[in-house]
């Protein structure tokens, strides 16, 4: 049974189709990087997979459960760090983690114990009285990830978890994610930072104009010969080269914006 399955997943906003006929099949234990240029449909897809947005058509299954009919059961087994991080700014870090744990069904004592461990692991325990609204961006990202994993989810959805995070905080986040993968969890991650995806992910899917244009293991994609590619046959591309060739590289602008000098 796959961890994440979508069939013909489509979302329209009026006349605009943000996501069209997306078919995903992600096995348990995969670290899946979901890439695409701005506005390609990454966040829309992750919002649909986590119940934040209703699809216009298509089916979604998480851990064999249909999202349309078993939404609450699915939510119990997943963790989410959405684009806005989903934090309650006027709680302290420990209060928020306690709250998150209990919302996912942990008892008071277990929630408190896990909150303490997570704050310690994320190096957030030295400011227990500081409100989240006064946290730095990196601290907020770490806290959001802590809240997403406090109940030990089997599938984790992360929307741009490394955006605006410095190298130190980024290292802590990566350590946490690798730990989860080692324990058999499935991670679905969107990111603009291709180096991070290349380093962490085992599988990659690329979406462009709402459609999946490539997916597979990282090794497989890098060895694919894209039509018109300048890379010699048999030589592996970097993920960035593959990405740019798949979604179209920067436009040739020599004839444009001549007034820029």
């Amino acid at each position, binding site marked *: 049974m796959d961890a994440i399955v979508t069939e013909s997943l489509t979302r329209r906003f009026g006349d605009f189709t943000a996501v069209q006929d997306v078919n995903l099949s992600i096995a348990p234990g995969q670290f899946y990087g979901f890439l695409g240029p701005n506005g390609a449909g990454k966040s829309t897809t992750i919002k649909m997979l*986590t119940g934040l947005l209703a699809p216009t058509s298509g089916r979604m299954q998480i851990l064999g459960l249909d999202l349309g009919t078993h939404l609450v059961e699915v939510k119990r087994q997943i963790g*989410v760090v959405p684009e806005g991080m989903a934090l309650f700014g006027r709680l302290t870090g420990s209060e928020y983690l306690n709250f998150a744990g209990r919302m996912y069904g942990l008892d008071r004592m277990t929630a*408190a114990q896990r909150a303490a461990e997570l704050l310690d692991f994320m190096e957030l*325990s030295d400011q227990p009285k500081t409100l989240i609204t006064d946290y730095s961006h990196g601290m907020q990202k770490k806290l959001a990830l802590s809240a997403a994993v406090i109940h030990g989810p089997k599938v984790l959805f992360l929307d741009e978890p490394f955006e605006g995070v410095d190298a130190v905080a980024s290292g802590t986040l990566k350590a946490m994610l690798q730990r989860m993968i080692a324990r058999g969890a499935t991670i679905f991650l969107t990111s603009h930072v291709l180096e991070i995806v290349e380093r962490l992910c085992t599988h990659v899917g690329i979406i462009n104009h709402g459609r999946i244009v490539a997916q597979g293991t990282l090794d497989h994609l890098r060895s694919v010969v894209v039509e018109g590619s300048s890379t010699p046959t048999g030589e592996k591309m970097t993920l960035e080269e593959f990405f740019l060739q798949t979604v179209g590289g920067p436009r040739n602008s020599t004839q444009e914006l001549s007034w820029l000098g």
Partner: protein
Amino acid sequence: MAGLSSASGEQLRAIAMLRWRLLVNALRSVRGRLNLVSRGLATLLVAGAGIGGGIALGSMAWGITRESNLELLAIPLWIVFLFWQLFPVMATAFNENVDTSSLLRFPLSYPAYFLIRLIFGALDIATALGLLWSLGLLIGISAADFHLAPWALLVIGSFTIFNILFARMIFVLIEHWLSRRRSREVLGVVFLLMMVGFQIAGPVLGRYSKKTGPERFLVLQKLIPVERVLPPGAAASVLLNASRGHLAAGILFGTLLACYSAGAFWILNLRLRDQYSGENSSGGEKRRSPDLPATVQPGWRIPILRGPTAALYEKELHYFSRSGPMLFTMVMPLVMVFVLWGGRKAFMPHQMGFVFPVGAAYCLLVLTNIVYNSFGGEGGGIQFLFVSPVSFRRVAIAKNLAQLTVLAIDVSILWLGVRAIYNPPTGRVIVFTLAWYFFAVPLNFAVGNWLSVYTPKRIDYATFGRQRAAESTILLSLLVQFSAIATGAAAIFIGKRFFSSLWASSVVLLVLALPSIVGYFVVLGRIDRIAQQRREVLTTELCRD
């Protein structure tokens, strides 16, 4: 204005176009159109208040001038001044539709920036009403004594310029202080004290009016010289001296008024120049030194609540306890008691038994913003509520329980206040009050839950007076509140008129409570479906910066 070029004119036109496009683009959603309708109704009210107030103040000025009591002209001028300066603090409160300070990234000259902040910032209700009322004064004085018309034009014109500059000066100063959360919270307490002060001012003045003539005269004798050198007094003194032919004194007071305007202009200029030269008014909080490491305390153990409901209830109370406006609601019942105490002889000397129910109704009224926009303070946290495995029904129940807790605390404080100042409320009054709550609370919660999901508006629990619910929510909530209060009054009338008993009024309200409670559970039963349907609106509105 020196420094303004044709490019500056183009920039001003571009900003005017920006505001127009923001208005037009807001009409793309049903909510935006509903808000426009509400805004249209509000504009009609403002126009009515402006024209009505202008006629009233103009008539007052006409009468005063006609009777040659020009020293009394200070009264309408004070009314205009106090409204112009205090209304933004109490109601719309420092909320520019477009944050013009963000325009600094464009190559604006300083004079253009100054003008933009002055003109676009002054497009508010207080300025509109202030201008109409000032026009009324000008017409009233000129109609009563045509020879005074040029002086009136000069004085009212200067007074208007002073008010605009002074209001903008207060705005930029407050904006500067509000840019940091901690000072925002401190300022919240100042707002609280101001609002309480104004609530108390009425009864205090009422009691003062009961003093004997000589006592009042002594106080007035001390106040008048001070009042004359303040802007409204100075403006009135110019006209008074002009009418008596004391030109030198008139010019002196006129100069004083001009000095006030110059002072306001100078401070406004200083602040805006600082902003223009790159002061980061939205700078972050001062980094705290690390607290001592502490173990994480488990969540509260709440006897009748379990699991997520307890966690949500605890979270709500954490939010309330860190909110200045919430402190305000705790104080308001006592203020109400004091207000009623101050006005007891004037308004209802034989009806003091109703202080408790009236105060109780007021307690519910001050919770309006929280009950009718209960997700407004969640911010990005709303996404957590959607991705967590907890139904919105449970979330709504926990929120209503927390609101009920605040209401219970408010009513307890009220009861203590009533008991201390008058007598403890009688049994029949307490039963009547509870019966009204059984009717009004579920009604408010039902409509409040529905509107909270349907027309959410992001608010900051820590900030006073800078934010409102959506216009449509305000209108509907006021309608429900007034209906509930009118129903209570009607129940009293029915009980007294037909049964000569307040017990009968309580029975009427308890009967009405049944459909109210059923309605609450009906909305609660549907809240999950509505929340799922409205999740995009909720997350988009509440997660925006």
